[in-house]
C-alpha cells in the first residue's frame, strides 16, 4: 500500500514538472516572438501584476498580453466608411502562483480581419485662441464593424485542458461614451470549431476527447461615472464585461455536468492617476468583482481582484 502511494506521488510530481515545463515552453516561444518583428510589424505588450482571491484564499498573479500585427490594406481616403484589412497573432492570459485560483485561460491565436468604420470626420476651422475651433461640417462616429477568420490554441494554466480552435468573428466597438453612447455596448460574436487536443476534464468524466463547436458572445460597457461626480473623482470609471460561451456537440455526459456553457461577468471600478502616478509608477488602481468562468477553465468562481496598472510601455 505504502509503495503504491509513493508511486502515485512520484508520478504526480513528474506530471507537475512536465506541465510546468510545457507552460514555460509556451511562454518562452511566445516571448521570443519580439525578435521576429520588423518595420512592417507591430509588437504590443502589457504586463499587469495583481492579487487574486477566491473563497478567502489569496494568490499573486501576472496578466500578460502580447500581440504581433500588420496592416495588409488600409484605405487612405478622406471620406467616411473607411475600410481596412489586417493580419495578427497574439497571446494573452493570467498566470497565478496558485493555479487553482486562476479562472483565466492562456490563449494564442492568429487571424485575418476586414473592417469598416462608421465614421465621418467633422470639418473644422481652427480659432486663434488655444482650444477654439469652429465646426463647419458636422461628422458622426457610430463605431467600427469587423469580421475575422482565425485559428488558435488555448489552455488552462495547469495545461490539463487544451484545445485547437478555428472560427469566425464579428465585432462592433464604439470608442465614445458621451450621452447615450455610454449605454451602447461594444459587442463581439465568435463561432469556433473546437478540436480537443487534451482534456483531463473529459477523461475524468469517462469520455474520449470529442470535438465540438463553440459560440462566444462578449459585451462591454464603460461608464464615465466620474464625470457626474465632484472634480477629484473625474478619473473614476465603471466597467462592465459580460461573456457567454456555448459549446455544441459535446458528449452527453459532459452536458449533464452542466459544462456545455459558461458565463463570465465582471464589474470594475478604475481610478486613473493621470497627473502624477501613484508612488511614481502606478498609473491606475482598479477593483474588479468577477463571477463565472472563461473556457477552457472548468470551475466557476467568484473573485475579487485589486490591481494596479504599472509599466504599461
Amino acid at each position: 500500500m505504502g509503495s503504491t502511494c509513493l508511486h502515485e506521488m512520484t508520478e504526480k510530481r513528474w506530471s507537475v514538472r512536465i506541465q510546468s515545463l510545457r507552460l514555460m515552453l509556451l511562454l518562452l516561444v511566445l516571448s521570443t516572438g519580439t525578435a521576429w518583428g520588423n518595420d512592417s510589424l507591430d509588437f504590443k505588450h502589457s504586463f499587469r501584476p495583481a492579487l487574486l482571491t477566491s473563497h478567502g484564499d489569496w494568490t499573486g498573479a501576472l496578466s500578460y498580453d502580447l500581440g504581433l500585427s500588420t496592416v495588409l490594406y488600409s484605405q487612405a481616403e478622406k471620406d467616411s466608411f473607411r475600410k481596412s484589412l489586417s493580419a495578427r497573432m497574439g497571446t494573452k492570459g493570467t498566470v497565478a502562483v496558485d493555479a487553482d485560483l486562476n479562472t483565466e485561460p492562456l490563449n494564442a491565436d492568429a487571424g485575418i480581419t476586414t473592417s469598416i468604420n462608421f465614421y465621418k470626420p467633422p470639418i473644422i476651422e481652427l480659432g486663434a485662441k488655444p482650444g477654439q475651433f469652429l465646426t463647419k461640417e458636422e461628422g458622426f462616429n457610430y463605431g467600427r464593424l469587423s469580421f475575422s477568420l482565425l485559428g488558435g490554441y488555448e489552455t488552462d494554466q495547469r495545461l490539463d485542458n487544451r484545445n485547437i480552435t478555428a472560427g469566425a468573428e464579428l465585432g462592433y466597438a464604439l470608442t465614445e461614451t458621451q450621452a447615450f453612447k455610454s449605454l451602447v455596448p461594444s459587442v463581439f460574436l465568435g463561432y469556433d470549431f473546437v478540436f480537443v487536443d487534451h482534456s483531463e476534464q473529459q477523461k475524468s468524466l469517462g469520455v474520449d476527447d470529442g470535438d465540438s463547436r463553440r459560440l462566444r458572445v462578449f459585451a462591454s460597457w464603460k461608464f464615465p461615472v466620474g464625470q457626474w461626480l465632484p472634480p477629484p473623482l473625474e478619473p473614476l470609471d465603471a466597467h462592465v464585461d459580460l461573456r457567454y460561451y456555448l459549446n455544441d456537440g459535446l458528449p452527453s455526459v459532459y452536458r449533464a455536468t452542466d459544462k456545455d456553457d459558461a458565463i463570465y461577468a465582471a464589474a470594475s471600478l478604475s481610478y486613473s492617476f493621470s497627473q502624477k502616478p501613484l508612488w511614481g509608477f502606478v498609473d491606475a488602481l482598479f477593483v474588479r468583482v468577477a463571477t463565472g468562468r472563461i473556457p477552457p477553465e472548468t470551475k466557476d468562481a467568484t473573485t475579487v481582484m485589486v490591481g494596479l496598472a504599472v509599466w504599461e510601455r
Partner: protein
Amino acid sequence: MRINCHAHLFNATSIFTTSTLDILLKRITEMKIPDLVKNELAKQVGNLLTKAGGYVDEEILFRTIIEKVTATSDFKKLLERLSPSDSLRLELFGGAKLEDYAVEKLVSLLGRIGDAVGKENQDATKSDMMDAISFIRLALLPGIRQVTDTLMEQLEHDDGVVALTMDITHDGSNRQLLEKQLADTAAQILAYPGRIFPFVAVNSRRPEHFSLMEAALNGKGFIGVKLYPSLGFAVDSPELFKVYAYCEEREIPLLMHCSEGGFYYADESRKNSDPLLWQAILEKHDKLKICFGHFGGAKYLTSPTIPDTCWSRTILTLMEKYEGVYADIAFHSEPMEGGESEKNYFTNLSQLLQDSRYRSRILFGTDYFLSRQQLTETSSWEYFRAHLSPEDFRQIAEINPAAYLGLPIDGRKCSLAMENHLRYIYQQRDALLSEAGDWVKSALKVIYGPDTTLPKPTLGPKWSWNNKVHAYLYAFLAEGQLSDRRKEEGFDAAGMLKLRDLAYWNKGFEAKELWTLKLKAMAENLDTFILTNGGSYEKNQSSKGAIGSLENLLDDGSRYIHEVGEVSDGIYMFA
C-alpha cells in the same frame, strides 16, 4: 552642477551666408576623409545652403553625394578592384535603387563608400567618415532648438552648457541673421532654465557690434562675450578695448578662440588669436575674466613638456600674472589617438592641476557640435572623466566653471552678469519650457525676495496651438474623447492628460477582441480626421505606417496627450 564651458548651439544656416560659406567649406575640406567624398560633400553643402533657403533635405543631400561620387571614374575603378563578393560592389553594381533608400540607409551607404575609398587613403578612416557625416547632419539641423535638444539629450539632468554664438561677417552685412541667432539662442535659456549660459559674439567688423552686445547682455539673458578674431579682426583695437572696459566693470566673462585651427577668414588672420596680444590688454584691464578657448591648441599639451614658447605657455604665463585668466580644453582630441600623445597630455594636464597657480583656471569644454567631427558629446565627457582623478575632473567641470561664470553657489555672490541672466529668466517666467534648477530658484529668492517662485512651465513647443498637428489632434479628441469638464480646462491642460483618461480607454476591462477593435477605430479615425481637415503625411510616412504607429501609441495608457502630439507631428504635416 557640471558645466561644458565651450559649446555651440547654432546650425549652419544660422551663421553662414553665401558670402561666408567658404569659411564652412574650408572647414569641411580640412576633415580627414577621402578627397573624393570630401569635395562632393563640400560642393553639395554649399549648394544646399546657397539655394535651399534654409531648408535642407538630408535625403537629397546624401543621395546626390552618393550618385556623384559613385559616378566618378576613380570610384568605378575602385569598385572593380573590390572582391566580386564584396557587399558594396554587389549593392552598387546590382543597381541599388537610391530613390528607395531612407536617409539612415543612405548615410550608412555613404559611410561604407567612404570606408572603401579610405582604405586606399592612409589619412582616412571609417570613423572619420561617419564623424564627418554626423557633423554635417548636426550642422544641417533645421534650427538652434534642435541642435540644443540633441546636445541636452546627451547630458545629465543638471549639466550646464556655455553656448557660444558666432558672428561671421567681413563687412557688417546680414545683421538680421545675427539677431535671429541671438534670439534663438536666448530662447534656449527658457527651454532649459539655469542650464544654458549664452555668450554673445562680438566681431568688430560689424559697426553695431557694441550695441548688439549690450542689448544681448542686458535684455536677452546673455552672460558673456565670445571673440573669434581669426574671422578677421584684431583684439587690440580701440573698439574692442571699449568692450573690455564694459566687461571688466560688470564682471562679464570673455571667451576667445585660441588655437590655430577652427574657422578663419584668411591664413594670416589666424594670428589674431595669439594670446601674447593679451599682455597689453590685461595690463590695462587686470580684472578682466578671459578664457582662452582650446588652451592655445592641444598639440602643445601632448608634447613631453609644454614648450617654453607656444600659445599654451603664453596663456600659463598670463594666468600667473592675472587672476581672471582661464583656459578651456575644448576640442582636445589629439590625446584620444592614444600612445605617447595621450600619456604626455594627461601628465601635463595633471601637473597643471596640481599647481596652485593654474588649478582653479582650467575649464572643461567639448566644442560641441564642432567636436562631432571626432566623437560624440557623451564620449568627450566620459573620456576626460575616465582619464582624470575624480577631484581633478570636478575641479575643471564644476568648481572652476562656477567661478568663471559667477554662479551664486558655494557661498559665492552672484556676479552682475549672472544677475542679469537670472532677471531675464524671471521676467520671461511665463514662457519657461521646463523646470528651473534649484540654484536658480534660490538665487531668485535672493534677488526678488523669499516668496519668489516660478510658475509651472508650459509644455511649449511640445504642445502648442501654433502647431497645427497638435491643434487638430486636440480638436479630434474634443469631439468625443474628452469630457465636458476636461474641455473646460482648456488646451494646455489637455496636453498633460494621459491616454487612459480618454473615453475609448477600456483596456483590461473587456475582451481583448473588443479592445483591439477600439484601437484600430481610434487610429483610423484620427488618421481620417487629420487628412480630411487638410493634413498630409510627412515624407517617408504612409497610411499603413501611420495607422501602425498610432495604434501602438494609443495602446499605451501612460502616454501623455502631448506625447501623442509629438508623435503625430512626426507623421503629419499641414501646408
